[in-house]
């Protein structure tokens, strides 16, 4: 469902009239429900915006897929004066609290429409000068707060604004002008909302194989998805991946977990042949210590030559074996391996 957010009731008027809206019984006023979503009236300013949106999402976040903010904005950059009374979509939202520029910015999602895409700075006060022009072309009072709360709740947000005025020192009575045009702006926004075609977000196929043959632990699933992403970047045909999977399905394994481990190994071989070669070489060095009771590990990032031996020594034979293994370890070859002396 969509959550449509407005600062003032007048901005939402066309939506409230044309949709079958019902006031929602909530902790505070200004929330309406309609068949395909909710409307939230926040009140003016960044604090009202963050308080009300956070309050609403705290209770209804599970029902909301997308947030759309509709409103008005002032124009800081007269270069775009042709956009007066026109709709724009916001690309990036910035914030100025009193005189302090907030470092954090939010880049909003935006659709494939014909609206001009501009940046907007939210100000904590009503301002009548263009000092913030180097940062953004538009100025509003709420968007940054909405975007920060949306980010906190991991909800995509977009913002459609109508440019209501060109900001200059004599724009003190702008509120009256905005009020006069509010209904007209609201209708334009509603028209745009109605024509909004659902943009299908086709997720990349994860190609997660059939669960009746494979069992993925959490980390295996992550690794598998990473491998699939790499295969897509390397343009390895999907058929190649599917072939590996179906080949393993027909083989006998002690359990699904083992089959999954082999699948990952096979995919590594195809997708990262160099890494696979390095791992093969490492296995040889590891095998050198076979016969000792314990673990041999290497630097996990393969950055340092160090080898960690965690060995149990119970008797003199164990001591002898360890001494023999250490004295026959191909140290020069091991060192050369880190200098890139690899037979690829």
């Amino acid at each position, binding site marked *: 469902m969509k959550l449509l957010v407005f600062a003032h009731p007048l901005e939402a008027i066309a939506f409230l009239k044309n949709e079958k809206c019902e006031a929602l019984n909530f902790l505070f006023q200004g929330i309406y429900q309609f068949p395909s979503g909710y409307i939230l009236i926040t009140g003016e300013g960044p604090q009202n915006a963050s308080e009300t949106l956070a309050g609403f999402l705290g209770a209804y976040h599970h029902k909301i897929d997308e947030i759309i903010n509709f409103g008005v904005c002032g124009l800081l950059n007269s270069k775009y004066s042709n956009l007066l009374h026109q709709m724009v979509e916001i690309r990036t939202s910035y914030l100025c609290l009193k005189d302090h520029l907030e470092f954090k910015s939010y880049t909003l999602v935006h659709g494939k429409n014909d609206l001009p895409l501009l940046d907007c700075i939210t100000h904590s006060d009503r301002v009548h000068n263009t000092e913030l022009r180097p940062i953004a072309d538009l100025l509003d009072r709420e968007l940054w707060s909405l975007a920060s709360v949306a980010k906190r709740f991991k909800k995509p947000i977009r913002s459609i604004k109508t440019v209501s005025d060109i900001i200059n020192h004599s724009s003190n009575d702008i509120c009256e002008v905005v009020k006069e045009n509010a209904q007209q702006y609201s209708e334009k926004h509603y028209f745009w909302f109605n024509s909004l075609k659902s943009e299908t977000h086709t997720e990349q196929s994860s190609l997660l194989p059939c669960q009746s043959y494979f069992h993925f632990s959490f980390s295996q699933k992550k690794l598998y998805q990473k491998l699939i992403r*790499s295969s897509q970047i390397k343009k390895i045909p999907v058929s190649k991946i599917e072939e590996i999977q179906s080949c393993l399905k027909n083989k006998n394994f002690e359990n699904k977990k083992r089959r999954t481990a082999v699948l990952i190994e096979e995919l590594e071989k195809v997708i990262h042949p160099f890494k696979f070669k390095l791992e093969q070489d490492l296995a040889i060095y590891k095998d050198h210590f076979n016969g000792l009771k314990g673990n041999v590990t290497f630097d996990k990032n393969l950055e340092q030559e160090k080898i960690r031996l965690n060995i149990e020594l119970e008797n003199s034979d164990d001591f002898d074996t360890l001494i023999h293994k250490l004295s026959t370890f191909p140290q020069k070859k091991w060192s050369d391996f880190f200098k890139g002396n690899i037979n690829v």
Partner: protein
Amino acid sequence: MFNQVFIEKSCLSNLRAQNILNKLNKKDPIIIDDHESFFNKVKKPYLQKRDNLNLFIAEKKGRLVKEAPDAYGLDNGKHYYFIHAYNCIYECHYCYLQGYFHSPDIVLFVNYEDIGMNIKELCHNKNETYWFHAGEFSDSLALSHITDEIPYLYELFGPLKNAKLELRTKSANIKAILKQSPLENIITSFSLSPQSHLKQTEEKTPSLSTRLKAIKKLSDHGHPIGIHLDPIIFTENFKQEYEILAKELLEHLDSKLLQYISIGVVRFSKESFYQVKKNYPQSFFLAENMNTSFDGKIRYPRPMRMWILSQVKQILIQAGFPEEKVYLCMED
């Protein structure tokens, strides 16, 4: 090229600044007190450089010349870089600037005389060689037709016999250099990669053949040349591609004028790596595994990158480049 041009009040009477404004045909720039009040003050997404790139004309304050990190250049001498600009007009997917500054906007510093004074002061020991690199935070030549600093740099470095200047570029913008008589201690260095890599990882940069032609022109005029095969990105057939590149390079360059070839494997700071994944999630260099390496940067595993470097070095030597001129960049 630029959406808006801002100029610091203090630069209004600067001739270099006026020249830049004239060349950009910007008669009405926005006057600001200080670029630092806006640039880097807020996080401006890197990809906005495509359609919302602003220019700041400013004076560089603070340290103008800085010591370069270890393994930055050839072993002989002390290495420094100087800051003539922030950010670049090109868009290279692997570029560390996307994680370095918080804005893609370009800042051009016009107080070259202050930089020059700093450079002269540093070169006090006549027995030492001092290297100065331009292009740490911006391409050295890409905008040189607008910024016009090349004649000044030739004038500055001419008498500084114990100093060397490297002008590092991906551009083919060599007109200003061709107007100068070659100096032994000013080296124009070009970053090159096989054309297929350039096509996939760089936007708005000149093609390989254009850069090779620029190298040839400079070489024909007797200007010293440096080459950076950096960043090298692993692909299944990278060896063949570097063999072709080495051959082509040799055809365009008088090897007597070649000062060095540095080779370096693709690497990222943590912050750049995060930005790269965000900005270019489908980049082919993200397909290989990379780890945190000795200096905290993200690289291929050490055995792999050392193998890649040894292969490229071998290719260069076999093609006919002198071994002593090839050095590894940013490896311990």
